[in-house]
């Protein structure tokens, strides 16, 4: 072989080696990217159980109360962590590695998704119509508001049956039978939620209080990592709704466990109390757990068709929520939280907006009621 041919062969072989090296490098990079992606995906699904220093929550040596608290002897142990500084300006308090959502604080315009008990707190300037009157925050209201409006006895709830009656002057707790969180078949507020904070909640299947959305036993959903602090229309809580109001794992069913006459489920208010939910629906009260596709007259060309982008002000639920939904369509579901907050709000009726300012046909508003009722705010 001539010298030139030899050089040519060597060059071609070298080129070949170089090309195979490039291919190898590409494969390695691809593999690394895949691993990184998997790690990211894994971290999104990582559980959010409470971790950190035991002492930050469990002040077992306290002689004053069961836990550290800035509000001594309130009779409400939850506030020791979730209402640490009612006059303070933090809606999430960080101690060590633990983050505590505050349901009772004075941070302006930054209430978390459920609202702020500040608006009904006796220690400030309360208006009891703006929220739930919890033990340790508000005094009990006078009858008839000393029992949940729409209460029905012995209804079906996750884990068993609701109470047979609501005792006179029985005030609301955070959890337990006379509350919302935890297992409501257990009366003691502490016992009803015991163990939930440390449970692996990477999958919210509603099987235990710890594996339920916001420890609301039986409820499914997607929890925003910061309780909707700085949420956006593409990053928010994912609320579970029912297409045909027959499921016990929705957030609206949870509300219906106390306010049963407002929910169309046959286990709750049903047709008799709520009205005919489907097929020429005539609602006696505002609909919940009803999908847009089932509205009277059909979804197509209805005013609801105009609600196309997720609104944090009037959120909707989904059958399989992810917390990243931006689109609202015929499969979106109206729920209690479309109009109300869970804890307390600045507005009467625990509404998300000032109902007294809702004026139809002015051409001025697309918010509040008009988020869904898109043809009533303006022509």
């Amino acid at each position, binding site marked *: 072989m001539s010298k030139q041919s030899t050089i040519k062969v060597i060059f071609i072989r070298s080129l070949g080696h170089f090309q195979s090296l490039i291919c190898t490098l590409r494969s390695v990079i691809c593999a690394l990217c895949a691993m990184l992606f998997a790690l990211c995906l894994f971290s999104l699904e990582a559980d959010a159980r409470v971790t950190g220093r035991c002492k930050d929550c469990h002040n077992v040596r306290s002689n004053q*109360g069961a836990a550290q608290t800035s509000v001594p002897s309130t009779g409400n142990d939850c506030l020791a962590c979730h209402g640490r500084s009612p006059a303070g300006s933090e809606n999430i308090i960080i101690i060590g*590695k633990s983050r505590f959502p505050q349901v009772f604080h004075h941070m302006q315009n930054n209430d978390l998704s459920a609202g702020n008990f500040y608006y009904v707190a006796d220690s400030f300037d309360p208006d009891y119509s703006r929220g739930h009157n919890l033990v340790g925050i508000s005094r009990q209201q006078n009858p008839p508001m000393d029992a949940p409006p729409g209460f029905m006895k012995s209804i079906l709830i996750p884990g068993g049956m609701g109470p047979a009656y609501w005792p006179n002057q029985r005030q609301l707790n955070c959890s337990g039978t006379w509350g919302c969180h935890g297992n409501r078949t257990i009366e003691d507020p502490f016992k009803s939620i015991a163990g939930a904070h440390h449970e692996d909640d990477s999958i919210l299947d509603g099987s235990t209080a710890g594996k339920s959305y916001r420890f609301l036993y039986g409820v499914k959903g997607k929890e925003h990592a910061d309780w909707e602090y700085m949420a956006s229309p593409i990053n928010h809580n994912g609320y579970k709704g029912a297409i045909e109001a027959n499921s016990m794992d929705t957030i609206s069913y949870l509300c219906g466990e106390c306010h049963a006459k407002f929910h169309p489920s046959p286990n709750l208010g049903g047709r008799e109390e709520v009205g005919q939910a489907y097929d020429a629906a005539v609602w006696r009260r505002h609909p919940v757990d009803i999908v847009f596709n089932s509205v009277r007259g059909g979804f197509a060309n209805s005013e609801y068709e105009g609600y196309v982008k997720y609104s944090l002000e009037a959120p909707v639920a989904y059958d399989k929520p992810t917390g990243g939904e931006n689109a609202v369509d015929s499969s979106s579901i109206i729920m209690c939280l479309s109009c109300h907050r869970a804890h307390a709000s600045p507005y009467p009726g625990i509404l998300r907006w000032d109902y007294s300012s809702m004026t139809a046909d002015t051409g001025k508003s697309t918010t509040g009621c008009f988020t869904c009722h898109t043809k009533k705010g303006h022509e």
Partner: protein
Amino acid sequence: MRKRIFSFLTISSIAVLFTLGMTGSGLAAVAGDCNACHTVYPGMTEKTFHAKPFEYVSREMFCVKCHSTGTSDTIMELGGNRVPIVFNNSKPVKPLAGGDFYYVVFLGDRKGHNVSGVASRDTEFTGFPPAYSRSLDPSSVGYNPQKPLTCAGSNGCHGNRNIEDPFEAIFGSHHAANTPSDGSTTARSYRFLRNADAVKGVTGLEDDEWNQNASPKKHNEYASSIDILCRSCHGGLQSGHAGRQFNHLAGVPIPVNGEYIKYKIYNLDAPVARETVPRVSSDVVIPGKDLVSCLSCHVAHASPYDSQLRWDYDNIFTEGERNGCLICHTGK
């Protein structure tokens, strides 16, 4: 004939030794050189009045004088006897099971019991013990808040708590028969913890080195009767009498489900009590049978940590080493 006698003696000796071994503690009563203990300090046995039986002077110092040392050793040799040390003036190398009063003397009141003759009176708990409830104290005398905490007697833990005088409360126990270990007398009670006549004395298996060289296999074994003793002075912590206190679980079986079932190997940092005191210490923990005890979290005398805890509660994290609370709370 000689062979028969020899065989008889051999067999008898073996039988005696075997019997002594079966009783657990064997002949653990104090023996040896009298002077070593009974003249441990000058004037200890001085006559006080002519023709009257001699009396011990400075009796309240007895416990401390024998059971303390200026060194860091926690077992001392005294007249042929091995004496457990509960108060070292130098930092103890291997504290015994009850801890060491060194910590309350040198690190502060929150580290342990402020026993008279060892530590000055607690600046916070100046009267009754925390969460004391007279109705839960089986002593016929009851705790006297005008007097300090003592090693023994109605204002203490050891001896017969129906007797106010600490010396009288333990008098004779060191030399008395300590078997069977049934709590019927002070000597027959675990670590001389007789409590009061109304209840049985504390029972348990006494490690022959007071846990100085303890391991998961070799250690004291506790019974729930020790929790009854603690409750005699701190009863409010369990009954809710003290208001909204942390629920001090004691005498409760370790649950058979949840995170607790993973606690299977005895841990000296979170010991359990037994339903039935075994003859030999064991490293096995049986959820559903073995019990949470006061001593699961606390030591009896004093520890390096606040509230006489076995570990530093300020530095227990759910991440990292699984120590302290996390020995039982394995799921946190």
